Structure formats: C-alpha cells, structure tokens
C-alpha cells in the first residue's frame, strides 16, 4: 500500500502537481490517467524518488519515503520494479543481459538459477527466442516486454509502469494489460500504471486516478467511472464527436465489465 498526501511538485516556478492525495492498495491494478502533459510521469517519478517533491508525503506500507536517507531509499528501491515510458533498456547489453542485470547486482543465485529465472520472466511476457538480440534490433513492443520482464525479475513488491502499451497495436496492448493484471493478483503487488489508453482503463481499472491541471480531478473504479457525472472526465474519455454522440444516444446507462 502506497499513500500519498498533498503531493506538490513544481519546476522553477511552474507548478505541475498542485496537491494530490490518494492511496494505492496491494494486489490491485491502480491506473493514473490524464491528458498528455498532465504530469503522470512527473507523479510517478516523485513516488519512486527520481524527482524530489516540492512538498507532501509519500509512504510505502507505513514507511515515510521522502525523509529517508539515500541508503534507506536504496533499501526500498530494491523492492521496486519500474517500466519506463521509453523502456530504458541498456543498449550495450542483449535482451537476456538486460533482464539478468538486477539479478547479477542483487541476488545470490547460481548462474544456472539466474538463466532459469530470466527465461521464466521472458516467457511470462511472451517473448521467446530474442535472448541474444540487442535493443536496437527489436521492435518497440518487444522492448516494452523486455522492460516489464526486467522490472519483475526480482519479484518486486511495488511495480510502476509508465505507459506500458503506448505505441502498441491493440492486440499486443491487451496481452500486456492481461499480463500486468495477472502478476499483480498472483504476487499481491502494488501496481501503478500510467496510461491514456481507454481499453486499458476499461479492461483492468480497479482503481483509477484522473489527473487534470495539476489536481486529482476524480478517482474510483471502472464501473464508477461510467456512472460519474464529472464533465471534465467525460471530455477526456469521450474525446471524439462520434463518441460524444454515442454517449448522448445511450444516456448514462452504458455499463461495462459485466
């Protein structure tokens, strides 16, 4: 469980996050949505400590994170897995070496166990037969999957994914969503996913936080989402004229999920 209280972040004097409070439970897929530039990446980077918040508090299972020393932060970070928006694969290493990197750094496994673990994770993300390729030689979708494999290889307690399926075709995107949702439930992880893909929102949104102009505009689950009467949220979801028409026609009675 990660709790955020009144989180603020500004760059120079440009405020990006203007006071956000929310919480993310373990074993649930928590989604952060918002338009491009609304501060999703900044929010997640504040949570993991890559950016220092201007003010506010962040706690990991009761441990206040922002006031920890560098060494204590490192301790928590070994329990964090993160997929970056651009995958951030190490381009001097092969796919296999990328996924094995955290194991080499932090685990005491034998090299046979490591190889098994790496192959298990790569199978988990549906990526076999690319072990010896370099990041420059694989597609964007494959890179995302390697990134996820690398993020989960140490069995993290907390998993952060910054737009895991942007730039992917709808079918591959769905595979990745299902994978994230499965591992979250299976290992009882606290998973936080940035997205602006409505398929993901409707497919796996157990908790959804909608960021708008630096504030938390709305939060709830995917069922509540459709019943909400928040206009800003509706403008975000039903962006095209076509969908707006559709919504008018159907009234507010569309129900998804069941």
């Amino acid at each position, binding site marked *: 469980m990660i709790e955020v209280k009144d989180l603020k972040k500004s760059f120079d004097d440009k405020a990006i996050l203007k006071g956000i409070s929310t919480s993310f439970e373990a074993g649930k897929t928590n989604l952060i949505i918002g338009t491009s530039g609304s501060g999703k990446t900044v929010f997640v980077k504040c949570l993991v400590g890559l950016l220092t918040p201007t003010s506010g508090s962040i706690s990991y299972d009761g441990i206040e994170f922002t006031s920890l020393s560098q060494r204590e932060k490192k301790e928590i970070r*070994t329990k964090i897995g993160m997929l*970056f928006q651009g995958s*951030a694969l190490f381009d001097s290493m092969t796919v296999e070496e990328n996924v094995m990197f955290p194991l080499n750094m*932090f685990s005491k496994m034998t090299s046979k166990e490591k190889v098994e673990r790496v192959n298990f994770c790569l199978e988990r993300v549906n990526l076999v037969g690319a072990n010896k390729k370099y990041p420059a030689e694989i597609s964007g979708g494959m890179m995302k999957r390697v990134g996820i494999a690398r993020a989960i290889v140490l069995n993290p307690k907390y998993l952060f994914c910054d737009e895991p399926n942007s730039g992917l075709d709808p079918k591959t995107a769905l595979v990745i969503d299902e994978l994230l949702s499965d591992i979250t439930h299976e290992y009882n992880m606290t998973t936080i996913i940035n997205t602006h893909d409505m398929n993901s929102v409707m497919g796996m949104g157990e908790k959804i936080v909608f960021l708008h102009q630096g504030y938390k505009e709305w939060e709830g689950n995917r069922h509540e989402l459709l019943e909400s009467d928040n206009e800003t949220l509706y403008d975000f979801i039903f962006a095209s004229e076509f969908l707006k028409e559709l919504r008018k026609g159907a009234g507010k009675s569309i129900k998804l999920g069941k």
Partner: protein
Amino acid sequence: MNPFYHVGRFTVMVGRIFNKPESSTMYWKELLRQMNQIGVESVPIIAMVAMFIGAVTAIQFAYQIQDFLVPLYYVGFIVRDSMIIEMAPTVSCMILAGKVGSNIASELGNMRITSQIDAMEIMGINTPGYLLGTKIIAALITIPALIVVAAFVGIIGGMLATVLSDISTLQEYERGLRAFFVPFNVRLMLTKGVVFSLLLTTVSCYQGYHVEGGAIEIGQASTRAVVLSNILILIADYFIAFTLLK
C-alpha cells in the same frame, strides 16, 4: 550558468562515486569493459599519431637547426626528450579528450535521456559508482600505459624519419637517444598521464551524466567535454611543467 552551481554539482557527483559496490563482480566486469573501450580501442590512433609526431619532430628540428653548428646526433636527443616530456603525454591526451571524452559524454548523455540511468537508480544501484567510477579508474590505469606506448612509438617514428630522409645515420640517432638521459623525465611523463586522465574523464563524465533534453543536448555536452578537457589539460600541463621543472 552560475559556476558555484557547477562546482557544487560536480562535488556531489564525485562524492557519490565513493560508495560500496552493490556487486563487486559486476563492477569488475564493467571496469574491464571500460578498460577495453578506453585503453585497448585507443591503441591504434595513439600509436599512429605518435609515429607521425615523432617523425615530424625529427624533420622539423633538423630543419630548424640547419643554420647552426648543432651536432646531428641532437636529433635523437631532442625527439626522445620532446616525446617523453611533452608530446606523448600532452598530444595523446588531447587526442583522447577528443575520442574518449566525446565518447564518454555521449554514451552517458544517451543513457540519461533514455532513462537508462534512472532505471539503474530505481534498481538501487549507485550510478556514479557503477558508471563513472569504473570509467575513471579504467582511464587512470590505461591512459598512462598508452602514453608510454606513444613515447616509444614516437621515438621509433623519429628514427624512421631521420634515416629515411637522410638527416643522419642510424648510429647518430641512437647516440642522441642515449645522450643526456634524465630518468626524472619519465616520472614527469607519468605524472602528467595520471593528472590528464583524471581531468579528462571527470570532466566528460560530468558533462554526460547531467545532460537534459534530447539528441542536440547530447551533441553539445560532448563538444563541451572535449573543449573543457583540452583547456584543463593544457593549463595543468603548464603548472606541472612550472612546478616540476624549476
């Protein structure tokens, strides 16, 4: 920007290098990779440049002294001393500032803008130690060795030029090589090598590690790395010469 800002950020970066490695085997492997990239891969350029510099030094010294009553064996003596005292350490490091410096800055800059450095930080790795420390140590080990190679090759280059351009006989050149030899000069050369490699790697690491933006900023950082390293190397060269040659 404010120089204090850079000095502060530089100090923090260097301070963070000194931390216990998360895994000594991984650091060791990275060190070997860097020694290969910085040292082994620079052997051809350093040797080629040194060869021609030795040759040019010989030809031009012979040209400069043709109006004087200087004995011909002085060519060997001058080539040896110029290579050891000045050309091998300084010119090699200026070349390395161009090659290794721009390489380090653009590699780190690329890792920074594609979030690879962030990804390592998230895993709990001390990136200054793992990425910068290994490069600096690799340079401290390999660059002085490269300079020794450069001095040897330069002296051979001078010999080839002397003999091929009929400046003097091989025997004369060899006599010059043995004349007035001061072992202290070798220490001077190695001191320069250590100081210059420290300067050029820390400056390039600083530039690359703190890139913000995109591909254009990487290019700018790598140019800044080259320029600053070159300037610092020559300033240090002067001060070393001034303090040690008094």
